[in-house]
């Protein structure tokens, strides 16, 4: 996939020749005060990669630099082996981009829009029509494709945004918060779609999100950034394993349950209206079940926590759980 080596910026490890995205010491400042990216060095392998960060962490800035739309203040970035500053045209031919915000005209049909944008991606007229129909079918909008976009639901609009990113047959998709504004069912459907594109279509995907719990289901790797800096880049397995926690809520007798779970060696901690315990293995579920059953308490909720990135990488439950459980510690 890689066609040319990336020149190495000083002080950073050599570029990874198999990487779809390779950033070296990437810094982007707006004026003198705002630093969107701060010496970011990261390499992204083919596959589905989550780009995790709170709002304002620099995800969108990174994507725009990768597309060659913004020039980094310092540092270098390469996409599919092409330099982002020098080869923006090539990169934008090989890359599909799904913006975070609404970007669709309401008064045209999905077919017209995606066909037009296919032409803008460099497809001849006939190919653009065919691929627009294909793309819309892939995202599940085949029946509705002749309707004006203004009549679509939010979920359908997100699918159109994905279809327009897909129409140019990209080698890499850059998806910025693709589940934005979707209800739970819509989120699940969108994530399944992204996973399918990544696995069946063989297109590498960088999907930016602030909801780790959401995209950890579909990603092979995770890149976590905060305030423009790299927190961690790793495979999804090694990243989330150490930090799984279980939320338990009972309608009454929380104190009793806490005491009982402590006796059973789980070290529970109060969290909102429930308890939080480290999820060591499936046996933890059994322990909690037994404790609740023995006490005869009405259990209303027991689920593996959906971490939000702020919680996983910063304070809150991590701090509360602290050293004893070893949860969520990323330097």
């Amino acid at each position, binding site marked *: 996939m890689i066609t040319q080596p990336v020149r190495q910026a000083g002080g950073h490890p050599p570029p990874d020749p198999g990487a779809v995205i390779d950033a070296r010491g990437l810094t982007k400042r707006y004026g003198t005060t705002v630093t969107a990216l701060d010496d970011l060095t990261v390499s992204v392998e083919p596959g589905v990669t989550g780009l995790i960060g709170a709002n304002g962490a620099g995800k*969108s800035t990174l994507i*725009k630099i990768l*597309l060659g*739309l*913004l020039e980094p203040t310092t540092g270098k970035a390469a996409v599919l082996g092409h330099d982002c500053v020098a080869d923006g*045209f*090539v990169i*934008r*031919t090989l*890359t*599909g*981009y799904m*913006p*975070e*915000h*609404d*970007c*669709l*005209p*309401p*008064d*045209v049909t999905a077919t*017209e829009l995606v066909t*037009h*944008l296919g*032409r*803008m*991606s*460099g*497809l*001849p*007229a006939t*190919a653009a029509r065919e*691929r627009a129909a*294909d793309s819309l*079918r*892939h995202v*599940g909008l*085949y*029946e509705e494709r002749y309707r*004006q976009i203004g009549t679509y639901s939010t979920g359908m609009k997100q699918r159109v945004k994905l279809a*327009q990113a897909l129409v*140019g*047959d990209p080698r890499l998709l850059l998806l910025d918060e693709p589940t934005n504004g979707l209800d739970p069912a819509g989120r699940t459907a969108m994530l399944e779609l992204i996973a399918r*594109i990544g696995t*069946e*279509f*063989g*297109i590498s995907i960088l999907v930016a999100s602030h909801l780790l719990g959401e995209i950890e289901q579909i990603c092979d790797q995770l890149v976590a950034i905060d305030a423009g800096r790299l927190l961690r880049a790793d495979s999804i397995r090694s990243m989330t394993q150490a930090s799984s926690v279980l939320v338990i809520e009972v309608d009454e007798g929380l104190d009793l349950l806490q005491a009982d779970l402590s006796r059973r060696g789980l070290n529970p901690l109060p969290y909102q209206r429930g308890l939080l315990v480290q999820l060591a293995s499936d046996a933890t579920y059994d322990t909690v079940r037994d404790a609740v059953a023995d006490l005869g308490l009405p259990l209303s909720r027991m689920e593996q926590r959906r971490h939000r990135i702020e919680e996983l990488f910063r304070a809150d439950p991590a701090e509360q759980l602290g050293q004893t459980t070893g949860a969520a510690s990323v330097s």
Partner: protein
Amino acid sequence: MSADASAAAGRLASAAADGGVIHNIGYRRYDAARLGRAQIVRALIWHSFRAAFGIGRGAKAKIFPILLFVLMCLPAAVNAIGLALNPGSTPAVTYDGYTPQLRVVAMLIFVALEAPNLVSNDLRNHTLPLYFARPISRLDYPLAKLVAFLLACLAMIEIPLLLLYLGIVTQVHGASQVWEQTLQLGPGLLYGAAWAVLLASLGLLLASTTGKRVFAICAIGIPLFFSYILANVLAHIGQQAFGPAGFGQPSTLTSLAGLISPFTLLGGVLRWLEKAPAPGGPPVREVMQTTVGNYGPLYGAVFLVLTVAAIVGLFARYRKVGVA
């Protein structure tokens, strides 16, 4: 059953479970040649040109452009009918003086309504990131829009002129008369092109200042309309206060008033470029009600500066516009 076959059966089963909607058609790659940047820009020009006439934008969007186009063609049609009914009569409509009042009204409405369609909609809907994420450069976008709208304005102005020409040459006899008409058509087309260039660049610049369609229509329509009224009023006052230009030169106020409005400016440029009437010859036709006096070159200069400034302003606007 082989592993492949069972996998295929599984896919079919899952497709059926989706409620009959079979999404699993497999992904097809695109390996054929892609268009270059110039061809992509050309595609965007064609797309925007069509959009200016409401093509590809639903039935409602077509009403006004088509109505205005028909309106612009009416004088040519009337002229052709008149000539056919009274063979040998002089054409009522001239090429350079093609019903100026009608042209002002029709083009004012056309530019105010359609320029926002080309640029404001993309601003309002934040569609620009979708364009900029594709293999064109940032300034290719305003370039394509400008060329497209210029072509649209040319179509609005020049096609009626060509119809007028056709209507006349089918009624005249002899190659020399056809040639004479052709010679007269040339300046008319050039003058129409000056209209198209100035109105297209001004209209797009004003439309690109706002993403709200209504605001954009006002941002174009109000200055164009009121400057035209003001220019005519001032020219009139100049005549009333300082006397008509019966003998010497017209008053300075009257001569300069035409600079205020793009329409009277264009009329002034035409007046300046028209040959001075021969002594004892027919009086100069009141083409645009613009009196230029000795300031003809100033009209030419203002026309050039205004056009260039509008184009530069349009490109500067898109150099700065955010990508998301």
